[in-house]
Structures are given as C-alpha cells and as structure tokens.
C-alpha cells in the first residue's frame, strides 16, 4: 500500500508530459497532441483513483519511505479524488478549446506545457498531506499562472499581471509565516499529525486563533473572499478566455479547498470565533459578488463576479461544518468547477465569434448558433440551482443545514443569491441570443467547431452530474466525512501506531 504509484501519478504524469514538450521545443502541433493525450490519460487515471478510493478507502504514500509524521505523505481521500477528476475534465476541455482560440503566437511560447505544470501544482495541492508541501505546490501552480497571465505580453496583461503577482507573493509570504507559527505550536507539518496534536491542545487558544486568521488571510486572498477579492475582477479580466476559464474554474477553488482542509483539521479549538468569522466573510462575499454581477453588462465581468458568489456559497457550507453542510459544499464545489468553466468557454465563444464583450451590443444570435444558446441557457439554470440540474443539490443541502443550525440570515441570502445569479445570466442570454438581430455580416469568420464541442461537452457533463447526483451520493458522503469528522482523515496515522 505504501509503495502505491497510483497516488503519485496525478502529479507525475502532467509534469513528465510538460517536460517532454519542453524537450521537443517550439512545435505547437506536437504540443497540442501531447496535451490532449495527457488529458485523456489523466482522465483514466483519476477515474481509477476514485474507484480505488471508493473500494479500499484513503490512499496514502510516504515519500522517501519516511514514516508518516516525519516525512512528506501524499494522501488522496475521496474529496481529493473527486477534485482531481473534475480538475482533469476541465483542463482537458480547456486544452481542446485552446486549439482554436489561444493563437499560434502563445502556443509557440510553451502554452500547453505551462497548463500541464499548472495541473501538476493543482493536483499536488489537492492530494498532499503536508502543509509545507501544500505551500510548495501552491507556488508551482502560482508560478505557472504568473506566466500564463502575462503570456502574450499585451498591455493589459502586463499591467494586471504585475498586480496579480505582487498580491499573490505577499499572500504566499504570509503562508510561510502561518506555517512558522503552526510549526512552533505543534512541532509537526503533517495534516493528520497536526490534527492529533491540536485535538487535545491545552495551550493558549488565542495563539491558535491568530494562526487561524493568518491562514484565512492567505487562502482568502487566493480564493477571492471579501475583503481580499480586490485583485480578482481586474486580474481575471486581462488574459485570453481559455486562461480565464482555467483560473476562474480552478485557482479560486484550490484556495477554497485549502480553507476547508485547514479549518476542518486545525482550527477546531475556537470554532465559535473562527467559523463564525468564516461564515460572515462568506456571506459578505456572496453580497459583493451579487452586486458586481448585477452592475455590469460586460459578459466577462458578470461571470467573474459569479465566481465570488460561488466561493461564498461553498464557504458557507464549509463554515457550518456538519454532515449535511459539507456534503452540500462538496457537491457545489465539484459542480461549480465544471459549470464555471463551461460558462467561461461559452462566453469566450460568443466573444471570439462577435469580437464584442458588452452583451448589450449583441442580439439575435440564437438564429446563428442555437446549440450554443441553449447550452448557455442550461448552464445558467444549472448555476442558479434549478432542479434537477447539478447546482440544486449543493444549495439544497447547504440551505437545509443553515436552517437547522439557526443561520437564518445566511440561508435567506443564499437563496436570494440564486435569484441574482439567474437574473444576471438570463440578462446576458436575452441580450445576446434574443432581441433585435445584430449585423451578422460582422461576425468573425473563425473556426469554432472545437470551441463548441468542448464547451457544450462540459455542459453535458454537468447535466449528467446533476441527473446522476443521487447515484453519486455515497461518494460525496465519503468525501464530506474527512471534513465534518476529521478523525477519519487522521485514521491512517492512528492505525499505524
């Protein structure tokens, strides 16, 4: 069990593929084939990982054969496995989408290897069981994202990319600071071991609260939680559409996952303060996101502010931290990764086809692209949480749990936010696809079959996920167990002893 290579394959495979692409140099066509094949391979591997985790429980490997609390351990529990699968699906779709949208200039400058390196970092951050290793993987995908955001070197990319880099460097430094504090309190870096040490912690609770706040500052900055979301609307606006889709779908979710992990395993001593604060910030995030989503007619901005709403909803679930809420949060996390990418890709398709980003200048596209139009409509309904589409289950569980735990205001704001999401997206839908026909002769003659295939494919995956949500419930119950019952996550350590 400890020598299982399968645990490390999601990290090793994309990195190897990226390295081979670096070896063969600037050959975009070879890169395309390589990236697509890696995506397919990763799909098979992550499915296999899920099956293995479902059948035989959490998979653990100890790097360098150093036993658990001393060496770095890589732990894939069900939550990590599900996130790995959805990450892979989204990345594969975006790679296919990039074939016709990113442009030869960027493809020559190692665009696909960078995406694969970013995938390495994201997969590593999901599957590691060591807080410092998590920092290293955070840096791996952040450095790849720094290059992706400035790749191409247009003015807005450089301007916004510089701010993005500085904000993230400051947050990363505070991550190290938080790890330093945590190490001085617990003397260990392993997630499970920290949990065991802090479970019967009898020291000064204020210190742990300060550490919790430092970690929240770090991950909230990465996840775009109010009040640390200020960089997000500007920076995510700058790069080309596939890169925005990748960032919007995955990067903020890694921050959310890190908050969930640390707040379920470490900071349980003073949850009356820390988790209340998290809930408060989550609700604020929903409100700010809703205001932004209503205020703009620019399609990109609307979707970017919708990221904030989704982050707020997931964090609401993780801050309540009982079984129903965490199951709901896991459902919504996976759902949002897929559907956000699909929405970004569909909006990107509209932008590439028409050359305009303002939805009010468009109209009547349904005659030209009925398929894209209805896919957008379904995606909008799904994001708003209309049953039986996938967004419904997550929201249902979170709202139910919020009512059970007397968080009435949170539940009501959560329900109202669905209306805002629906309104903001249907507004785009009506403006772009209905209404007066725009001048169709101005449509850009771009090839768009792959753009449509990947974006509609993601919508289909999301619909299938929604219809099969009942069948998948055991998986999500298993995934949520690590969060609401952290002792089950740490069991691989306690069983060894």
């Amino acid at each position, binding site marked *: 069990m*400890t*020598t299982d*290579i399968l645990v*490390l394959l999601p990290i*090793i495979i994309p*990195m*190897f593929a990226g*390295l081979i692409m*670096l*070896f063969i*140099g600037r050959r975009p066509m070879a890169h395309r084939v390589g990236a697509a094949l890696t995506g397919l391979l990763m799909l098979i591997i992550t499915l296999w990982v899920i099956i293995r985790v479902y059948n035989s429980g959490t998979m653990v*490997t*100890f*790097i*360098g*054969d150093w036993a658990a609390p001393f060496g770095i351990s*890589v732990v894939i529990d069900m939550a990590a496995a599900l996130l790995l699968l959805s990450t892979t699906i989204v990345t594969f779709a975006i790679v296919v989408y990039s074939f016709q949208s990113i442009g030869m200039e960027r493809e020559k400058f190692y665009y696909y290897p960078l995406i694969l390196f970013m995938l390495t970092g994201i997969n590593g951050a999901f599957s590691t069981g060591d807080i410092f290793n998590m920092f290293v993987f955070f840096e791996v995908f952040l450095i790849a994202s720094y290059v992706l955001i400035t790749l191409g070197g247009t003015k807005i990319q450089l301007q916004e990319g510089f701010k993005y880099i500085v904000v993230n460097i400051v947050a990363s430094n505070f991550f190290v600071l938080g790890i330093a504090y945590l190490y001085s309190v617990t003397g260990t870096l392993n997630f499970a071991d920290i949990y065991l040490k802090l479970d019967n912690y009898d020291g000064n609770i204020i210190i742990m609260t300060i550490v919790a706040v430092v970690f929240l500052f770090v991950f909230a900055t990465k996840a775009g939680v109010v009040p640390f979301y200020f960089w997000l609307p500007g920076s995510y606006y700058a790069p080309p559409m596939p890169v925005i889709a990748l960032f919007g779908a995955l990067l903020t979710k890694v921050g959310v996952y890190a908050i969930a992990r640390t707040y379920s395993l470490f900071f349980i001593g003073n949850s009356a303060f820390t988790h209340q604060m998290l809930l408060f910030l989550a609700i604020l995030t929903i409100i700010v996101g809703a205001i932004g989503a209503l205020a703009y007619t620019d399609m990109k901005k609307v979707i970017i502010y919708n990221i904030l709403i989704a982050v707020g909803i997931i964090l609401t679930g993780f801050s309540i931290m009982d079984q129903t809420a965490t199951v709901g949060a896991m459902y919504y996390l996976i759902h949002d990764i897929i559907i956000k990418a699909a929405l970004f890709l569909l909006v990107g398709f509209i932008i590439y086809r028409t050359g305009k980003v303002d939805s009010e200048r468009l109209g009547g596209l349904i005659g030209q692209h009925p398929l894209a139009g209805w896919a957008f409509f379904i995606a909008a309904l799904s994001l708003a949480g209309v049953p039986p589409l996938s967004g419904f289950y997550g929201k249902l569980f979170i709202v139910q749990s919020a009512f059970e735990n007397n968080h009435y205001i949170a539940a009501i704001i959560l329900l109202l936010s669905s209306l805002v999401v629906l309104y903001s997206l249907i507004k785009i839908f009506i403006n772009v696809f209905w209404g007066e026909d725009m001048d169709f002769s101005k449509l850009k003659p771009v090839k768009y079959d792959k753009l449509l295939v990947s974006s509609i494919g993601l919508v289909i995956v999301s619909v299938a996920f929604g219809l099969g949500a009942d069948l998948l419930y055991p998986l999500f119950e298993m995934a949520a167990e690590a969060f609401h019952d952290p002792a089950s996550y740490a069991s691989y350590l306690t069983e060894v002893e």
Partner: protein
Amino acid sequence: MKSTLKKAGYSRVQKQMHDVFLQFTSKVVFFIIIMFAFNLFFAGHYTPGGGFVGGLLAASALILLLIAYDRKTLFKMIPIDYRLIITTGLFLSLAVPTLSFLFGTPFLTHQHTYLQLPVLGEIPLHSALLFDLGVFLTVAGTTLLMIALIEGEES
C-alpha cells in the same frame, strides 16, 4: 513623477565598457569558482553543500564572465542552450525518484553503496547524486536565463 528607472540611467546601463583588468581577472577567477562549485556539489548530502548551492555558484561564475564581456562573447566562449539545460535538469530530478518504483520502494527513496577505487580509495556512491545533478543543472540554467533575460534585449 519622473521614473526611477530613468533616473537610474537604465537605458545607458546596457552599454558595457571594456575593462581590461576585469576581463583578465574574471577569466582566471571563473575557473576557481567553477571548481569550488563542483567541490560543493560533490560534498553535498553528507556535509554542507549540494546541487542548489553548486548550481548557484556555477551560474555566478558564468555571470561574472557575462559582466566582464557581453552576451555574444560569452556565447562564443561557452555555447549554452538554457532550455536544454533546464529541461535536462528537471527531467533528471523527476525521473530518478520515479525510477525507485521499479525497485518496489516509494517515490524519492534512494539507494547507496560504497565503491573501492584503486587510487581514490573508498568512495560513497549515492543515487541522490543523480537527483542532485538535476537540481544543479536546473538552478544553474534558470539563474543564467533570468540574468540573461534581464540583462539582454527582448528575446
């Protein structure tokens, strides 16, 4: 507000002057630094040193030449392909740990042995050396690439 870069005379810094003393000395010092870099590299694992420090020193030796001469002359002296160096380094430091799966041990598990050589006597041999060589190449290549990018024109 006037730009700080302009105040610092950024546009003029790139034109290099020919300093005979610097050029002559750096040619000699280059070899000393490179030898020390390799010494540090091989000293690693059991004593302070290793791939990272060695790589940085090797890169700094080349950077010294870069300061004394310019990029074209340096390339004439030592033809370097940054991409190949970095990729080989990364590949080594990823492939060597992965190979340990073939021996049924987890990622990054190393093997070591002692070798009896006629002149040098007993020499410890460690599979971490290959991993460290990867680190050495990556660090040296990356540092050189960065300095060359910042020093040179757009590339």
